[in-house]
């Protein structure tokens, strides 16, 4: 059951990662086009800066989960490695619980923040792009992280009980 949950999380995170990839590639292409058109033809791309900022928001928030799955978030592994396996699983349990709590709060607050933007009708500076949908998207992008930590927490609980 937990294996299926893990596979589901991986697929979900990889899918989200592709959205992030698209957004970051858009940032490179847009900036290059903007540089060329503004330097050579003196006509910068309208709203390029706005799109860049929003694309980065999407890129990062949708990449958090796959970065976590691939264990690329920096952590200090040295000390835990010195402990016994039993201690390690107990610590994992505790850390995963805290992380699950933190990301639930992050998702909740990002939704609340987006809702505030929606009510205020906030738009980007130049291109007047509504910002609320992107803030909602950032919140959605962090949901897989909650699922990953839930799965990790359940797995570590099962392992602790087994030992």
């Amino acid at each position, binding site marked *: 059951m937990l294996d299926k949950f893990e596979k589901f999380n991986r697929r979900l995170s990889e899918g989200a*990662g592709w959205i*992030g*990839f698209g957004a*970051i*590639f858009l*940032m*490179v*292409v847009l*900036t*290059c086009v*903007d*540089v060329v058109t503004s*330097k050579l033809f003196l006509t910068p791309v309208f709203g390029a*800066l706005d799109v*860049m*900022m*929003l694309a*980065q*928001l999407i*890129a*990062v*928030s949708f*990449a*958090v989960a*796959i*970065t*976590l799955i*691939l264990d*690329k*978030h*920096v*952590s*200090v*592994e*040295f*000390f*835990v490695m010195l402990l016994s396996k039993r201690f390690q699983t107990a*610590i*994992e349990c*505790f*850390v995963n619980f*805290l*992380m699950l709590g*933190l990301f639930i*709060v*992050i998702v909740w*607050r*990002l939704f*609340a*923040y987006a809702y505030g933007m929606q009510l205020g009708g906030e738009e980007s500076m130049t291109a007047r792009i509504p910002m609320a949908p*992107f*803030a909602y998207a*950032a919140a959605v992008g962090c949901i897989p992280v909650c699922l990953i930590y839930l799965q990790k927490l359940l797995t570590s609980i099962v392992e602790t009980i087994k030992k």
Partner: protein
Amino acid sequence: MSPETTGVVGIAVMLVLFFLKMPVAFAMTLVGVVGFAYLAGAESALALLAQDIYETFRSYPLSVIPMFILMGEFAFASGISQRLFRTTHAWVGHWRGGLTTATVLACSGFAAICGSTAATAATMGRIALPEMRKYKYDNTLATGCVASAGTLGILIPPSTVLIVYGILVEESIGKLFVAGILPGILLSLAFVATVALLCFRKPELGPPGPVTTWKEKIRAAGGIVEAAILFFLAIGGLFLGWFSPTQAGAIGAGGALIIGLARRKMTWKTFFEAGKVGLQTGCMVLFIITGATVFGHFMAMSTIPFILADWVGNLPVHHMVVIGIIIFIYFIGGFFMDSMALIVVTIPIFFPIVERLGFDPIWFGVMMVLVAEMGVITPPVGVNVFVIKGIAPDVPLFVIFRGILPFLAALIIVALIILFVPQIATFLPSLVQY
């Protein structure tokens, strides 16, 4: 609890969470938000959390980070490093220890288009190690050299660590990049001198490679053209004021992509792979900065950095002693923590002290990078060592660590030179205006 006590407890809890293997970015965020909630109320803390995440993720000044990371990844995928090594191999490969010298020089060249130590070490390791083994180079020298020369990646511009430092302390990224040039060249020369000295004492460590004709040398020199074009386009454009830092990074990434396509090295597979790795690294760095932002707000609320800065500023000791202690803390911290994370975590605490003592922030940035470089090649978390171990799994870890020792000594000597002759780092930035 008073704000100061809360701040101290917060730092202690954060360190405990680090040691429990909680990701650094998330630990800083958690401690920052809980500490802020304790001092200013839960409602303000929760509002601050969402705002910090949203604003950091969409920050335009921060977009320079993923752009330069992508530039390095695309340059790696474009095979530029391979051609750089071929060039240096043809020119100095016939010297005693010539292949290690060639590796150091190629690493310096690749560092000029890639801002990551691990990427530089991985790239050069894959190319240079098989070649050195072919010519029966000693494993200690070969692996130690590649791991150490990889550290040039974060000193010679573009440097991701200097970018992050520049953003955190609000210093010009262009000036920081310029500041890294002379120390980078000095360090490259120190590594070359180390190789020469080692091979002079024990010639069997690095037997000479095949002699190449002048025709071959000149033909091979074409290998540095692409790297030079990319460097002058991106970094030169930044220095000349043509581009903003983000634009320079994007132009560099686009340029590396075009070189890869023109050379037929960039397939769909390598393109997606490089892009995804770049995105994940960028995401990791941006989340660390987000954590540092939340934690920084908590620290500011606790007033600890200001109290500490005042206290240290009034200590009856020479300022160089204080800076020496700070650098020593970085040196020790580098043993246990990733260099980027270490700098991001400690900047809110140490930078006010450095400012209060009147040290040049640009010089301090270069010093920090130099010390952080030591962290990536020293146990137990020397990232570059594990990268090289991955490339040469048959070489025991202690052999690689032993090979690093002479290069670590060179690194320490260069750091001491720059500590006492800061002009090496500050001279070039004083000439530029941005």
